[in-house]
Structure formats: C-alpha cells, structure tokens
C-alpha cells in the first residue's frame, strides 16, 4: 500500500507571532508561525486580516524574531526551528515569497535540550541576534551589512554555560553601546550532585547579562543577579535616550524592573478577586509599544487580563513602575501591537482576533504601583481588581482556529452531496463543535421573492467606465423584468428594454449602449434612448447568443450563425453568416483582448458532442480553427482569460492564458487551453461537478475574472496564490447567476433559484472548508453519533472550574456587590456566552471561567441535534466526576435498545502523581425520541475507563490496564470476562467480527480474540514498537492505523500467513499464546506505513470526502489542521509521485533548513507515503525549475500540474 498525504486544512493555531514592516515602507505586517507553517498576514483597509503568503517549511518553528538594520526601512525575520540552523528571511514583495538570506548551521537537527532554537533575542538596534537552547548553549551572531548594503552574518560566538536551564532571553536596549542580552537562568549543577534534594530546593534563578564586545568580537557574562524563582519572562525596556534601558522581569505575581547598577523596582500584578489563594498570576505574553515621546508595555496574564505597564523614569533612574488594568481578551500566545493602531492577538486556543485601540488607558488611577507596594510578614500584600467590559480595545476581525481538534468524525448527517466533518474544537469556555463542509463560505446579502419563476438574470452597467452596475434584468418564461440598482433595488420601466418577451442575453455593448437579445431579434438601446431593432429573418427564432463588449454572435434555430460587430459609430452591424450542420447547443466569444478591436475566437458547442473553435477575424471569418470532441453534448461554454501575472498580490508568475470551459450535459466540467494565436486546443481536463449540466458564468473575484459553475451545487473557479482552484460554494442549487457590483457590495453575485433573487458575496478565498460553530460548555473530549436519531452525544470536562450553578451563584453575588443588573440568564450561561449581544458583561468565552482548586472537575454529557444546533439534553455530572469515554451499545436480547455508556473518573488528579477516588461506567437510556438521557445505573470500577466499545451485544471496557467484557445487569454491569495482561493503560478499543484491536497508551496495538466457548479474551499479536498512541482507527481485518504523540502516523498489519493461521487454528492461537514470547504476544504485527505528520494527530477516521470517491484516512491534529491520506490505485502514479517528490526534495529544499526526508522520518524512516504537500509546492517553483523537473520526469510542467490537480480532486 502506498499513500498520498495531503493537508486539507492547514494548521489554524498559532505558536508565535511577530509584527513589523516586512515588505518595507509604512506597511505593517504580521508573521505567524503555525507549527510547521509560516504565514504573512496583513490587515487590509477594512480591518480584515488577509493572508498574503503561507509556506509550509517542513520543520518545527520554535521561535520568531524580527530585526531592522539601523537606518533601513525593512524588517528581516529570524527563525529558530528544529533544523539546527538559524535562518534569516526577507519578504519579497514583488514575487510574494520568503527569500532565504542566510542559513547558518550550528547543531544537530531535532528539538533537543542543548541545541539552540528555542529562544531568540535581537539587539534592539539590529546589530546582533542571540539564539538559545533550553539548556547550556547560547549563540550570538553579529549582523551587519556589506558595501553593497546586503545583510551579512558573522560566525557564531558562544555564550554557553553548562548546567544551566534558560527560561527566557531578550535583548537589552543600550543604544549604540555594545549589545547586551539578558537571560533568566538556573544553575542546576549543585542540585544535580546532591541526592538529598536540599540543593534542588534551594536552587536560585538568576538574571544574567551577556555583553557582546563588538571590538573584541567576543561575548562575556557581564552581570548576574538573583531574581524571584517564579521569574518566567523578560521584556526589553527601551534605552539609549528613549528610556531607562534594562529589562522587565515577569515573575509569579510580580513585575520587576531590573538593570545593572539599579535597585529593583517591583510591583504586584493585580489579581482577580475570585481567584483561589493557591493560584499565582503569571504573565504569558507581552508586547511593547514605543512612540517618540512615550512607551508602554502590555502584559497578559494566564487568565487573559491585559495590564498596561508604564515606567516613571528620570533619565536612567526608574522612579515608579505602574500597572494598570487595560482589558481582558482570551489568553494569547503572542501579542502584536501594530503601529497602525491595531492589536493582533494570536490566541492560545480558539479564534485569533484583531483589535483596534480605542484608547490607551490614560486615566491616572492605577491598580498597582511600586510606590504603593505593601510588605507584611506574610509577604507582599496582594492587589485586587474586577475585570470589566472591553474599554480600550474593540474587536474588528477574527481569524478562525480549530486548535485543538479533540475529536472529529466525517459523516453525512445532513444528507448533502458531500459528507460534513464534525469536529470538537477548543478548550474551556471557548470550546465549540464545528461543522466543516468542503467549500467556500458565502454571505448572503439579500433574498427577494419575484412574481414568477425566473429563467435567467443579468446585470448591466450603463457605461463601460462605470464602477457599479445599473440594472438587474430578470427574464421569465414570457416577460422580462428590469430592476434598477441604487439605494434600493426597484423595478423601472424606462430602461428601454422590451418587457413583453423573455430575454436571451442582456449586456453592455460598445462603450455606452445596451443590448437585449430576445427570441425574435436584437434590441440595441443607445445611450440617448434611440432604439434599433434587428429582427430575425422569416419565422426563425434566436436559440443561443454569445457576446462580448464589441461582438455578438447569435445562433438561429436550425443552426445558422449570424455574426455582428459594433462599428466605429457604435452601430451593431451584421458581418457574416454561417450555416452549421445542426442545432447549436451553446456558444461563447472570448473577451476582447487588451488593445484589440475584436476577439478572434468563437466557440460553438453542438449536439454531436463536439466543440468547434471558429475564427472571427475578417480574413478567415467563420473558418473552423480546431475541433474538440467531448463525452457528452456541451450545455454551456465560457472563455476565461487569465492575464499574465508576475508575482504581485497572489504570487507566482504565470503567462497569459486563454481557457475554454465547457459544462457538459453529464455534469462534467471540461477545460482546455486555447492557443492564443492558432486557436488550437490542448491540455484537456475534466472534472465531475454534480448531477446537473454545469452552467458557466464569468464573475469578478478580488478584481480578477473567475468562473461560476452552477451544477447541482455552485462551484467557483479562481486563481489563488498561483493555483487555479475549483471549489464548491456552500450554498443551495442556483439556476442562473451574474456578477453584481453596487456601492454596498463591491464584488457580489446575483443569482436566481426557484422564485427568489439572491445576492451574495464569496468570502475567505483559498480556504478548503467553511465552518459553522456551536458553542459548548467545557473542553469537549469525545463524541458519538446516535445512529438512528442522528444526534450527537458529546462529553465535556474541565479541571479546576466551577459547575454552572456555582458560577451562576457567584456571578449573581458579584453583580449584586457591584450593583450591576444581571441580564444574562441561565440559558445563556449554559453555552458559555453564546454571543456578544447577550449583554452579559463578562462572557465566559472572553473572560474565561473563574478558577477553582485544581482537584475540582466539572463535566457534562450533552445531546445535541446538529440540524437545529439545539442541545436537547445536558447532564452535568456531580461529585467531582469527569467523563472520559463514551460509546453507544446495544446489549443482546435486552429490552432497552440502544444505550449509552459513559466512562467517568471521580477526583482525578495528575499531580504530584496520577490518582483518583473511583472510576464508574454510567449506562444511560434514550428517552423522548432520543432527545433525553436517563441514567439506568452506574457501576463502580477499579480504574478509569478510558475506552469503551460494543462487542457482540456486550460492552468492552478498557479499565486501566484491564480489558473487560460487561453484560447488562438489572442494577449494575456484570463482569463476564477479563484480560489483565495489557502493559499500561488501554486507550482505544476497536472490534471487527471476533477480533478486538486494543490500543495501549504507550505500547501501540494489541490484537485480541474472544473465545465464546471458553469465555476467554486473549492477545494473539502485538506491536514491536512502543508507540504512545493518541488516535487509532480500524482499517481492515488485519490492519490498524494509529498516531502517536510524537506526530507520527502509522499502519500496522498482521502478516497474511499469521492471520490465516490464527483463523484456521481451532484453538485460535491460544496454545501459542499461552507460550508467549518474552512476555509479549506470540505474533507480531508489521509496520506497513510510516509518516511523520509533525503535529499530534488526535483523531483518525477512514472516510471519503467526495461523493463516489475512494476511501482515505482523514485526520485532525492539535494545531487544528485536517489532512488526508489516500491510497494510490496504480503503480504508475506511485512511480510518478515518488520521482516528483525526489526531485522536489533536491531542487526545492524546505525554507527553514530542515531536510525534508529527515523531517518526514523524524522518529521512524518514512515508509510508502508520498508527501503531497511537498509535491503541491511544484507550481510555486520558478518556471525554468519546473521545466527542468518535468524534463527529468519525461513530462511537461502542465502535465505535472494536471496530475497534481487530479489527485487532489480525488481527495476533496
């Protein structure tokens, strides 16, 4: 088996983010690391974040920093990754890619303790960079420029210190003196030597300054001073005339200003009043904003509260450190303050947000200050504050994030054309159930009913130079309706259009006149209101029309073509007639090329399954230039011209091209390239779009021509970052469409469906999925589908939180105390702040849940109807119980039908050691049509049931290391059979026929069998590799697919002969089992597939995402990405893609210096998987490189692109 791996949805979570001016000048951009992806974002004029560039680097990005050489206008990006190299990137605005300026190797690859890459610090003046490891090593690179003003980098200078752990590093701003870097370090040499643990408890963190002597080219430890042991982060304080220099040390509960030769200035971080005393307050992210006259810091705590920190200073002396509550937003991994007045918050979990500053918290009252610091004998007096609504920030945009995907299932619950992906995302109050559908999201602007069922719709401008459309013309079976577009859309009768007849085409012709083609003629409406009418000869009627701005071709019944042109005076003149052999099915004229009089090509589709390209040149008018036969009669034709592009906003270079698209009656979209000189067609591609013949329309998307195809669902063909993408729209079936542009909606589509007129816009181009989010209460863990009722049953749990009632009560108390009327009712509370309009001043989604003691658990079981998105039943578990596993089970010959089993643990604690009070399995029955759950009984078990599964009319449970079979009793579950021989903890159980596939938390899969006649469970095969399993799925009788916590995906298979032996053996291999092999099973499974995804896979499923497509493996990851592995069906494809992959590895090494093959083999050598993400980088290569690779593969670049497109279309 060979698999093709493809990421369908790139990671959506963010690890770190930096901001700067990467394209130079005044523009402000954000560079974001999403694990293995580097993105460049920019807020556009409307405050929407646009992704300019997204690059997969095939490595792990661990840190990012930006720097600017003195006097330069542009920022560079430094990337610390797992490649053992430091990489400096420059963003190339013209060609839209990251240019690798420098790549310096310093160590082994991989995320290691002592190989730098974890921390990056930059000298504020851009003269040096420090890259540090978690332990021991720190390297300093001197950055400079040569005579040609190119950036140069020195060889590394070592600032190592053995036996030290580094917590944070930053640059110290000391103007143009020698660059200094600060680090929080802990020396563990003594603790390491002392077995009593006394030294370990006395270990002390230090703040150390490292000075880079530019003269001696050498780094030395300049100064070291004790800091709080809770210190976790450093923030640079401006210096060199702008401020006092030094650093802010963020520690547990304190912010301390420190500098060499300066006394500590300390202030307490204010606490929320409801925070338990045992909890400290830590700063998790920070941003510094500097203007000419002032600077301030924004520090965010682990609870989401942002504090503004200001320093009162007199030259180099800091007099006071003030902390003022600023606002509360969800906890971020990075905060970026943009010079343009925006705050970008890269959320730790859930959606990211862009905020605009309304104010900068200038009021003089502050919560905490170094001047008011009170020290008592118990320590420093805490300061309290009350969080409030956003005052200084206002959210203007959101970037959706699925991170983390906890569980996912691909099912077609809504009975749509393609299955939906149901995923449990997020954490705590920000958790959601998201329904992903392949396709682009649209936003509906207006829907209005029409008096009849329309057959077609057009929009026309009055003048070619107009920005917006003037009329919407709707054609009915025997009438035409004209609507004028203004403030409102209303019917008009003075437009000059004939309204007593249906229309075949309406368009702007020439510069400023309108044309209406109806079955009996052409009506030409001049700008001054004169009307010219051309009538068809005899009783013949017009069947089809094709036109562009200057040319019109009509086809009469019987197959006669008549060609008109607009002459110099703006008159429509008949030029040529041509008799076709039979009726014309459809026709289209290519758009007039820039600077030309006319287009040369007319495409005519006939019912004899052919498409002809005819010339419209005066020299060879109506001559057939080429002929293409197709599989079914064409229904609609469209020429799509792609203008030549060299970089720019959407990337790669591509020459001008003319594509002819044809929608065939069998539902296939057929696309060929038309040679712009000879009219010859080549490079035909076809794709099945739906059950109806696609109708094709030209619309505008982001200022470029794009194609809308209306089949049984609408599709959009457009160019995004150099790729032509054909993506479905998540919208209902449409009949006819036209582009629409008005001052409310610059780029929209007007369409008719049924008797309604719909106006909509297409959003978030380039995305594969659109999502619908349903909020949940706690972190979702798992879910199952109730197969009959099609409802979802979700288990949610959170540690260290209060139950809904307790929260409700404390909130009330708090509001009463604060004197605010409480508007949020219990229902809104349920879903953790469903929306912002509910006037709840403290929505949990934004402020987080109030924190309880860490041993407290809250958990609930929810029955949710995905169609109505309503929760029909929500059971909150009592007594500190939390749900961990769930399954539906049908007990054999028992009266209840489908029951629900939920595994729970009571009083679970992970620290200092995993412990719990009790484990239970709850059995629920469905009532009221499956909407409500009722507890049948609850059985105490001696471990935590982490896996449950139905098996032969009974319940299999993995309880700790025991696999046990339960039957349903009257008052409890009855233990019928068990096997205690599993190594650690069972986390997954799958069954197929009489086999049971058990996944152990650290020892991969065990294949088991149940023998009824002896009532025994025994293991007959296991894996040789101790894998830390995070997700598992059953592939076939002998094969399981799994993922481990190091980011590997693998398949194991029982060898065929062993499998046969087991099946044939009357004892089922039991005798062999009893002998065993070194305490393991007698047989071993073989690893047949191995692939390093580079992200922890949390859920796996065998599924097909397209109707009639082959099944593949779909997975979701912690970082919020969705990917698929598709098995190849032919050996040729395997050969082709493995060669393409090989060439790309050589010719196009990953951006951040990690070797591709080494990355995909990070833990185990990659086996039989082709990396589609690498192959899909082929179109981004320079043209000559593409040609070189194509030559080596004996193909043309176009063929390779076609192949890539084909395989992608097989997956989604």
């Amino acid at each position, binding site marked *: 088996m060979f698999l093709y791996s493809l990421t369908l949805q790139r990671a959506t979570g963010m690890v770190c983010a930096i901001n700067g001016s990467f394209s130079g000048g005044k523009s402000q951009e954000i560079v974001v690391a999403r694990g293995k992806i580097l993105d460049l974002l920019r807020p556009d004029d409307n405050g929407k974040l646009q992704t300019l560039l997204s690059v997969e680097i095939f490595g792990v990005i661990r840190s990012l920093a930006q720097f600017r050489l003195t006097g330069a206008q542009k920022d560079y990006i430094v990337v610390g990754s797992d490649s053992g190299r430091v990489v400096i990137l420059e963003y190339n605005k013209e060609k839209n890619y990251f240019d690798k300026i420098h790549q310096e190797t310093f160590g082994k690859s991989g995320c290691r303790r002592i190989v730098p890459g974890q921390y990056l610090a930059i000298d504020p003046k851009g003269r040096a960079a420090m890259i540090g490891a978690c332990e021991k090593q720190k390297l300093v690179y001197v950055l400079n420029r040569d005579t040609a003003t190119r950036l140069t980098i020195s060889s590394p200078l070592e600032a190592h210190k053995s036996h030290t752990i580094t917590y944070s590093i930053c640059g110290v701003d000391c103007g143009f003196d020698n660059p200094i870097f600060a680090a929080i370090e802990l020396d563990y040499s003594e603790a390491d030597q002392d077995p009593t643990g006394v030294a370990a408890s006395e270990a002390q963190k230090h703040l150390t300054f490292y000075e880079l002597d530019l003269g001696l080219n050498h780094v030395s430890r300049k100064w070291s001073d004790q800091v709080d042991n809770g210190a976790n982060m450093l923030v640079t304080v401006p210096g060199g005339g702008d401020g006092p220099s030094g650093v802010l040390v963020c520690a547990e509960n304190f912010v301390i200003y420190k500098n060499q030769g300066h006394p500590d200035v300390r202030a307490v971080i204010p606490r929320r009043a409801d925070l338990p005393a045992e909890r400290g307050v830590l700063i998790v992210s920070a941003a510094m904003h500097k203007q000419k006259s002032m600077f301030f810091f924004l520090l965010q705590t682990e609870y989401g509260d942002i504090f503004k920190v200001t320093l009162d200073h007199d030259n180099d002396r800091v007099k006071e450190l003030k902390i003022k509550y600023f606002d509360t937003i969800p906890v971020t991994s990075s905060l970026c303050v943009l010079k343009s007045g925006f705050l970008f918050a890269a959320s730790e979990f859930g959606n990211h947000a862009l905020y605009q500053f309304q104010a900068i918290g200038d009021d003089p009252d502050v919560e905490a200050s170094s001047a008011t610091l009170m020290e008592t004998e118990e320590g420093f007096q805490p300061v309290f504050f009350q969080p409030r609504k956003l005052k200084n920030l206002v959210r203007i945009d959101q970037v959706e994030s699925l991170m983390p995907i906890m569980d996912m299932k691909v099912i077609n619950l809504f009975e749509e054309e393609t299955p939906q992906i149901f995923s449990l995302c997020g954490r705590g109050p920000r958790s959601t159930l998201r329904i992903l559908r392949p396709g682009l999201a649209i936003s509906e602007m207006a829907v209005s009913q029409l008096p009849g069922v329309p057959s077609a719709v057009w929009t026309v401008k009055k003048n070619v130079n107009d920005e917006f459309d003037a009329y919407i013309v709707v054609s009915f079976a025997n009438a035409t309706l004209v609507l004028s577009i203004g403030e409102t859309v209303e019917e008009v009768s003075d437009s000059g259009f004939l309204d007593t007849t249906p229309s075949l085409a309406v368009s702007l012709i020439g510069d400023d006149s309108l044309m209406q083609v109806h079955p009996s003629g052409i009506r030409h409406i001049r700008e001054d209101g004169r009307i010219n009418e051309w009538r068809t000869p005899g009783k013949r009627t017009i069947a089809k029309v094709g036109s562009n701005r200057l040319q019109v071709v009509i086809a009469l019944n019987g197959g006669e073509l008549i060609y008109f042109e607009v002459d110099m005076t703006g008159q429509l003149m008949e030029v040529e007639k041509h008799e076709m052999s039979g009726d014309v099915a459809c026709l289209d004229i290519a758009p007039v090329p820039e600077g030309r009089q006319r287009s040369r090509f007319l495409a005519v589709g006939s019912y004899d399954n052919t498409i002809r390209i005819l010339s419209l040149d005066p020299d060879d008018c109506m001559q057939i230039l080429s002929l293409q036969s197709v599989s079914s009669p064409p229904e609609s034709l469209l020429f799509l011209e792609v203008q030549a592009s060299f970089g720019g906003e959407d990337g790669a270079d591509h020459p001008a091209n003319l594509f002819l698209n044809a929608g065939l009656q069998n539902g296939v979209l057929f696309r060929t390239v038309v040679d712009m000189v000879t009219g010859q067609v080549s490079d035909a591609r076809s794709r099945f779009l739906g059950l109806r013949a696609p109708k094709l329309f030209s619309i505008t998307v982001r200022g470029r021509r794009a194609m809308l195809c209306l089949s049984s669902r609408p599709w959009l063909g457009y160019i995004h970052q150099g790729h032509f993408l054909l993506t479905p729209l998540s919208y209902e079936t449409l009949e006819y469409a036209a582009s629409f542009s008005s001052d409310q909606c610059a780029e929209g589509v007007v369409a008719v469906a049924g008797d309604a007129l719909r106006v909509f816009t297409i959003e978030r181009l380039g995305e594969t999925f659109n999502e619908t989010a349903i909020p949940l209460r706690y972190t979702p863990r798992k879910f199952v589908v109730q197969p009959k009722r099609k409802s979802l049953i979700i288990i949610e749990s959170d540690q260290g939180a209060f139950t809904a009632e307790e929260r409700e009560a404390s909130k009330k108390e708090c509001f009463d105390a604060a004197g605010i009327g409480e508007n949020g009712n219990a229902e809104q509370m349920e879903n953790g702040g469903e929306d912002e309009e509910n006037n709840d001043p403290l929505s949990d989604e934004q402020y987080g849940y109030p924190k309880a003691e860490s041993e407290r658990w809250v958990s609930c079981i929810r029955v949710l109807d995905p169609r109505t998105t309503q929760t029909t039943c929500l059971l909150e578990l009592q007594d500190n119980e939390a749900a961990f596993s769930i399954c539906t089970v049908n007990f054999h010959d028992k009266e209840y039908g489908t029951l629900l089993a939920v595994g729970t643990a009571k009083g679970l604690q992970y620290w200092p050691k995993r412990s719990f009070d009790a484990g239970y399995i709850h059995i629920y029955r469905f009532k009221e049509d499956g909407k409500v759950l009722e507890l049948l009984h609850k059985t105490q078990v001696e471990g935590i049931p982490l896996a449950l599964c139905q098996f032969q009319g009974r319940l299999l449970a993995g309880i700790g290391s025991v696999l046990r079979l339960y039957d349903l009793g009257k008052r409890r579950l009855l233990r*019928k059979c068990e096997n205690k021989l599993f190594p650690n903890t069972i986390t997954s159980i799958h069954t197929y026929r009489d086999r049971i596939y058990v996944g152990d938390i650290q020892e991969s899969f065990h294949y088991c069998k149940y023998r009824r006649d002896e*009532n025994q469970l025994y293991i007959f095969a296991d894996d040789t590799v101790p894998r830390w399993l995070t997700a598992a799925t059953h592939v076939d009788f002998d094969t399981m697919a799994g993922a481990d916590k190091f980011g590997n995906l693998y398949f194991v298979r029982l060898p065929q002969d062993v499998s046969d032996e087991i099946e044939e053996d009357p004892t089922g291999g039991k005798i062999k089992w009893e002998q065993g092999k070194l305490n393991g099973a007698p047989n071993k499974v073989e690893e047949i597939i191995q692939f390093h995804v580079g992200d922890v896979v949390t859920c796996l499923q065998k599924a097909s995402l397209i109707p009639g497509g082959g099944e593949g493996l779909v997975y979701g990851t912690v970082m919020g990405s969705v990917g698929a592995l598709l098995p190849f069906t032919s050996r040729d494809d395997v050969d082709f893609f493995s060669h393409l992959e090989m060439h790309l590895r*050589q010719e196009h090494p990953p951006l951040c210096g990690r070797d591709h*093959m080494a990355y995909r083999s990070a833990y185990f050598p990659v086996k039989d998987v082709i990396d589609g993400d690498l192959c899909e980088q082929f179109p981004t290569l320079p043209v000559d490189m593409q040609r070189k690779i194509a030559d080596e593969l004996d193909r043309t670049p176009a063929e390779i692109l076609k192949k890539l497109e084909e395989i992608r279309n097989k997956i989604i």
Partner: protein
Amino acid sequence: MSVFGGDSWGREAQYRKRRVDDLIIEGIDGCGYKKLPNGKLVCLLCPHHPVLDTPLMLSQMHVKGSRHRAAESEQKERELSRQYQINKRIALADSSSTAVSSTSSEVRCGSTKTPLIEQVHKAASEILAGESPQCSTMDKSPDVRSDICYYKKENQSIAKSNATEVVAAPEVAFQQQLDYKNRRERELKLISAGWKRDAHGRWFKDENVEFDSDEEDPNVYLGQ
C-alpha cells in the same frame, strides 16, 4: 544535496538504477524468479536454482539458455498433468456427492473439522450430565430416536454411521442439525455468561464472573 544527509548523489542514482532494472525485469514471468534480500535474483525454474547478479543477466542471458528452456518446458508439462489430475478429481467428487443432500454433507464437514478430542470430551460430558442423547452429537445415526441408552447406541452407530446417513431423509438431518445448533448456541451463551461445568457436567458459576441476583440456574431449567 542528497536526502541522506551527505552531498553524494550516489544513493539517488543507485535507487533510480534499481527502478529501471525492475522495469526491465517485467518482461519475465513473475513466478519464475525470486528477488533475494541482497538484490540478486534466483531462478526458480531451473532445478539447481542459479543465483544471478543483475536483472539484466536474468532477462537477457539466463532465460535464453538451453538448460533454462528445458527446465521451463518440463515445468509446463508438470503443470498440465497436475491440472488434468485436479479436473479428474473434481469430476469424481461431483458425481459422488449428488446422492447426499447438501446439508448433511456440510454437517459432515463441520464435524470432521472439530478435533476428535473435543468431540469425545463433549460426548462424555453430556452423557455424564445425564442428558437425553438425541442431539448430543451429530455422528449418531438418525434412526435411533428412542430412549435407548447411549452406550448401546454407540456400538451400532460407529458401524452404521456413514451408510445410514446417506439414506436418511434430508428433513430429519436438517432437524437434527437445527436442534444441535440451538443446543450449541444455548450452551455457548451460558459459557459466555460465565457458567462453567464441573466434572459431573453440572453448571456452576465462575467465581470471577458477576451475575444478576435473579439469574436462572441452568441446571434447573435445562434439566427439565
């Protein structure tokens, strides 16, 4: 740079070459040779199994050699004669089975599949349990349906078994099989529910298994 870390293109080239070699070899019948782990090839047709270094040697040189050809034709002959034998046997088997109804032949197959020890064990345990012998085993003759003791019957049935089975009416055999199945199913259900049999064939509860308090005792309801 090579994907193996060094700067050598050697591995890549070697890999490519091997792929080309594999393509060349496709002209030869796949079962005629075997690839050894060291990349060499062994011809399976020739009796002395010569080892060849490269696919080229195999496809271009060895295959055209006279000894190989002789071996090949011999192999073909053997194949043909074996096929002939198989056909003959199939034809014979078809004619003999026409007399026996399909269900009883299945039963026979089923019974022969379970090892003898198991059968004996079961028979013994059932007799000891004092059950009616009607459906205890399927080897017993169909005409013995009275209350005669199993011990007596066994002597007869061994002698008669095959002959009588052939003449037995198919309905009777079917009925028997159904009874047997039901019985077997009930027994399996009890076993999987945690019941065990003691040396006297009586059911008792496995101490490691839990039961509902009002669960019926199979000794009571099966004994009737």
